[in-house]
C-alpha cells in the first residue's frame, strides 16, 4: 500500500493511503472529537462532531469517513470548525436532560467532555424534547432514551456478534429511537445482557445497572482484569471504593472478543467483595438465580465424579 503525506494543523504526517483523516491526526497526537466513531466499528459519520476544514473544499468534511489524500491540508480547530462543533453540541444539549449533578456517566461522558472543551452550556428553550422513557426491566442494563444522542454505536456493536443483533433504530427524524427487537423491553427482548452496548455508549443512555448509585468515576479506583471464564479473555474492570471492590464492568470489546453475561458474573464473583444476587433470563423474564446456576456450575462436580468413577 502506498503512503501519502498530508498536513494537519501545520504538522506534516505520512500515513498509508487507506487511512481516514481522524486516524492520521491521532498519529500526530491531535485528538479530533467524535461521538459516533469507534475504530472497532463500521464508520457511519453520523454525529458530525469530527468535522474538519480541508483547503480547497467548500464544505466541512467528517474526518472519520474522509480518506487522506496526497498534499491535503487539514485544519481541525479552525474558527469555522469550532463554530460548527459548538452548534452541533448545543443542539445535542437542547435535547438532553440537564442532570450531570447525579448522572452515573458524569466524568466519563463524551458529551460532557466536549461541551466543556468547547464551552457549550445547557440553555432554556420551549421546544420539544426526547421522550423520557426509561427501561428498567433488566437488572443489568438501564436504558434511558432521553439521554440517547443516536450515535448508533450500540446498534453496530450489537450487530457484530452474529447471533445477537438485538438493538436497532426505529422511527425517523426527531422520533428516532434505539429499540430492542420489535420495540420490546430489554427483559422481553432477546438481549443476552453482554453489555457490549453499555461499553460503547458515549453518554448516559445505556449504563450498567449493577453499578448504579454505588460510586462516581472520580471517587473510585479502576483496575483492568482478564476474564477467566473462557479462552477469549475479554477485558473487565474491577471498580473499588475505599479499599472495597464494589463492582465489575465490561470494557469495550476488541480483537473479536464477544463479552458475555457469564463471563461478567464470573469476574464479579471472583473479585467483588459483596456481589449482588445474579439474575437469569427464563422465558423472557428475569428471575433470581443461585451463583451455581448463574455460573453454569450446576451438576459439574457430579459430572466430574461420574467421569472419574467410570474410568
Amino acid at each position, binding site marked *: 500500500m502506498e503512503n501519502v503525506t498530508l498536513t494537519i494543523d501545520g504538522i506534516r504526517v505520512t500515513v498509508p493511503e487507506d487511512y481516514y483523516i481522524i486516524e492520521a491526526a491521532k498519529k500526530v497526537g491531535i485528538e479530533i472529537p467524535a461521538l459516533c466513531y469507534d475504530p472497532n466499528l463500521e464508520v457511519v459519520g453520523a454525529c458530525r462532531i469530527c468535522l474538519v476544514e480541508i483547503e480547497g473544499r467548500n464544505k466541512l468534511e467528517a474526518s472519520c469517513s474522509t480518506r487522506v489524500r496526497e498534499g491535503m491540508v487539514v485544519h481541525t480547530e479552525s474558527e469555522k470548525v469550532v463554530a460548527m462543533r459548538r452548534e452541533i453540541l448545543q443542539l445535542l*444539549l437542547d435535547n438532553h436532560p*440537564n*442532570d*450531570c*449533578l*447525579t448522572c452515573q456517566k*458524569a*466524568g466519563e461522558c463524551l458529551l*460532557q*467532555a466536549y*461541551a*466543556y*472543551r468547547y*464551552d*457549550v*452550556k*445547557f440553555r432554556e428553550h420551549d421546544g420539544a424534547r426526547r421522550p423520557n422513557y426509561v427501561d428498567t426491566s433488566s437488572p443489568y442494563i438501564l436504558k434511558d432514551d432521553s439521554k440517547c444522542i443516536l450515535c448508533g454505536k450500540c446498534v453496530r456493536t450489537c450487530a457484530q456478534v452474529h447471533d445477537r443483533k438485538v438493538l436497532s433504530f426505529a422511527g425517523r427524524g426527531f422520533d428516532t429511537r434505539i429499540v430492542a427487537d420489535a420495540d420490546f423491553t430489554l427483559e422481553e427482548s432477546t438481549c443476552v445482557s453482554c453489555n457490549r452496548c453499555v461499553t460503547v455508549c458515549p453518554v448516559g443512555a445505556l449504563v450498567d445497572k449493577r453499578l448504579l*448509585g454505588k460510586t*462516581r*468515576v*472520580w*471517587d473510585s479506583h479502576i483496575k483492568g482484569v482478564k476474564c477467566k471464564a473462557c479462552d477469549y479473555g475479554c477485558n473487565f474492570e474491577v471498580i473499588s471504593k475505599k479499599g472495597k471492590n464494589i463492582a465489575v464492568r465490561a470494557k469495550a470489546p476488541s480483537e473479536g472478543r464477544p463479552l458475555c453475561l457469564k463471563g461478567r458474573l464470573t469476574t464479579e464473583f471472583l473479585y467483588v467483595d459483596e456481589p449482588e444476587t445474579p439474575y437469569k433470563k427464563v422465558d423472557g423474564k428475569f428471575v433470581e438465580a443461585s451463583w451455581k446456576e448463574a455460573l453454569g456450575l450446576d451438576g459439574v462436580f457430579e459430572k466430574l465424579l461420574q467421569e472419574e468413577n467410570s474410568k
Partner: protein
Amino acid sequence: MASITINGKKYEVDDNITVLEACRKMGIDIPTLCYDDRLEPHAACRLCLVEVKGKGKLETSCSLKVKDGMVIETHSERVMKTRKEILDLLFSNHPNDCLTCDKSGACKLQDYCFEYGVEMGTYEGEKKDYPMDYSNHFYTYDPNKCILCGKCVRVCSELQCTDAIGLEKRGFKTKVTTPFDLGLATSNCVSCGNCVAACPVGALMPKRKERFRLWEVERVKTTCSYCGVGCQLELLVKGNKVVGVEPAKGKANNGLLCVKGRFGYSFINHPDRLKTPLIKKDGKFVEASWEEAYRLIVSKINEIKDKNGPEAFAGLTSARCTNEENYLFQKLFRAVIGTNNVDHCARL
C-alpha cells in the same frame, strides 16, 4: 469516657468530643458542608443532623458534645428525609451547570446530591442573581454558587487572620462579601487562596491557565519549595504538566498555603526554567553537568583560598533552604573553607 449508642451499636468514646467526631472515628459517614476540623463548629449547613433519643428536634452533630448514655441515630428515616430536603433547598437556589462547572468532581453539594438521590431542585421561585467577581488575579468568586456555609469567612478570620471577607445582610439576601461590597481587588485580601481551598462548592475557584477536569488530573503530594516552612501541597498534574496546586494537610501548614505556594506554580513548566547548571565559556553560558559545575566550584575555591586566604570568602544563604541545608552551609564555610563570614537573608 462516655458510653454511647450509635445506630444500635455501643461505643466507648472520649467525653469531650462531639457526636460528629465520635461518628467519624467509628467510620460512620455523616455529611457536612460547613464543618472543618480546624475551625469552631458553626452548625450552619444542618446536613450533619442526627436523631438523639429523648430530644424532640434533630440535633447538629458537629456542635453536640457526647454524653454518657446517649442514643444516636445517624441515618434514620427522619434524618435522611431532612437531609434530602436541605439538599433540595440548596440545589433549588444553585445554578444547574455541573456539565461544565470546574468544581465538578470535587463538589460536596454534588457528592451529597448523588448520595441522597436529589436529582433536581424541586423548589421553584427566586434564585440568586449576582455578578461574578473576577477582580482578584488568582481566583474568582461566583456568589450564585455560594451555599453560605461560611467556611471561607471563618478560614479568613480564624486561620489566616486577614478578615478580608464577611457575611452581609440577612435571610435570602445573605452574601459573602468584602467591606462595602467593593470587590476582592480593593479588599485586604492577600490572595492566599485558603478560602478557595475551603469552599465546598464552585463559588470560590482558582483562575486556571489550562482547561482540565478534576477527574483528569493526577495528584502528586510534595513540599512547597518557596521557603523553609515546609508546607505540604498537592500538584495537580495533567499529562506531563502541572496545572494547579491544592494545599494538603501537613504538620507545618495544616491545609493552609500562602499566595506563592498556592498560585505561583507556572515556573515549573516554563520554557525559560534552568534545569542544568550553566558555565560561562568564551563569554557565553553553556549547559553543563552537575559534576562539571561542582568541579569548577571546588577548583575556584581552592585557587582563591591559596591566593587570598579563607577570609576572602563570604556566604549568604536563602530562606528557601531548610534549617538542615542552612546548617550544612555554615558548616561548609566554617569547617571546610575556614571563615566565619556566613549569614542568612532572613536576618537582614
